[in-house]
């Protein structure tokens, strides 16, 4: 008859386990259905030089990162210094200025440093919608075949850079 007492206790601890795990999950983090799928193609004017365009077609055959950001986004400013530091790692980082005023975005790059090889200008946010952006900053890692392999929701942190992004880039580059 011991089971009668142990079983509820075991069930209770299983429940506590699930609830405890739930405390450390971020309900705002919506997993992207785009991982493992081709990155949506786009062509957009280059920030600061609208006569030129940036096209995803030009990126075929390379591993690259697309970082969505905006001058009005506080979390992006928090992330910015780390992006500038990433220059040292020789990471192919491209920017997407999401729903921003061009002059404001350029001012940020001027004041805080420009970590991007090129920044594409998504003034009306339609490219963002294609990529499933719901809160900048978001960063995508796209492989040589143009497949999205990873999405960082929210700012890149030193931990996510060390544990996820750098190892994945190494693997994809090989």
């Amino acid at each position, binding site marked *: 008859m011991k089971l009668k007492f142990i079983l509820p206790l075991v069930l209770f601890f299983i429940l506590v386990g699930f609830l405890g795990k739930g405390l450390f999950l971020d*309900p*705002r983090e919506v997993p992207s*259905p785009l991982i493992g799928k081709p990155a949506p193609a786009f062509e957009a004017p280059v920030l600061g030089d609208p006569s030129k365009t940036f096209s995803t077609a030009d990126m075929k055959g390379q591993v690259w990162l697309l970082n969505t950001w905006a001058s*009005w986004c*506080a979390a992006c400013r928090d992330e910015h210094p780390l992006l500038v530091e990433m220059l040292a790692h020789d990471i192919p980082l491209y920017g997407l200025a999401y*729903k921003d005023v061009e002059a404001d975005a350029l001012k940020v790059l001027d004041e805080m440093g420009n970590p991007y090889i090129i920044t594409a200008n998504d003034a009306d946010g*339609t490219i963002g*919608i294609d990529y499933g952006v*719901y809160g*900048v900053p978001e960063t995508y890692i796209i492989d040589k075949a143009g497949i999205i392999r990873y999405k960082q929701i929210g700012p890149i942190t030193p931990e996510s850079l060390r544990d996820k992004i750098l190892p994945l880039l190494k693997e994809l580059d090989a």
Partner: protein
Amino acid sequence: MIALRPILITVALFLSTLSFNMPAFAVDQVSESPAVEARLKKLSIELRCLVCQNSTLADSDAPLAQDLRNEIRKLIEAGKTDEEVVAYLVARYGDFVTFRPPVNATTALLWFGPFLMLIIGLITLMIVLKKRAKLLASDETLS
């Protein structure tokens, strides 16, 4: 005279810590056709706003929700069916955007879990009742 400035600065600092960042400029481009608006309404109450996740796309004021409503208007005007519009959003944001997620392997527990609990409860109840009946019967034989 209460110094307003420190209060305003505090409020501004607090607002700047909100991690969800969306621009302030976005406007609903309401369609001239009432039919389009009616279909948008019907669709958007079934869809989740990604920014304020417990509101529907219909009643969210988040700029992204406005952008998405405008996209849905365009899709409806382009003659897309309701299923195609929902598929468009699911392809970008996942099943999470639908308030009625589709039945598949990952959502099976969500859909059938309550019934499973009900069955477990009924089985437990039956076992307990049977035991009790047995106990009562043995009590009667004793007396």
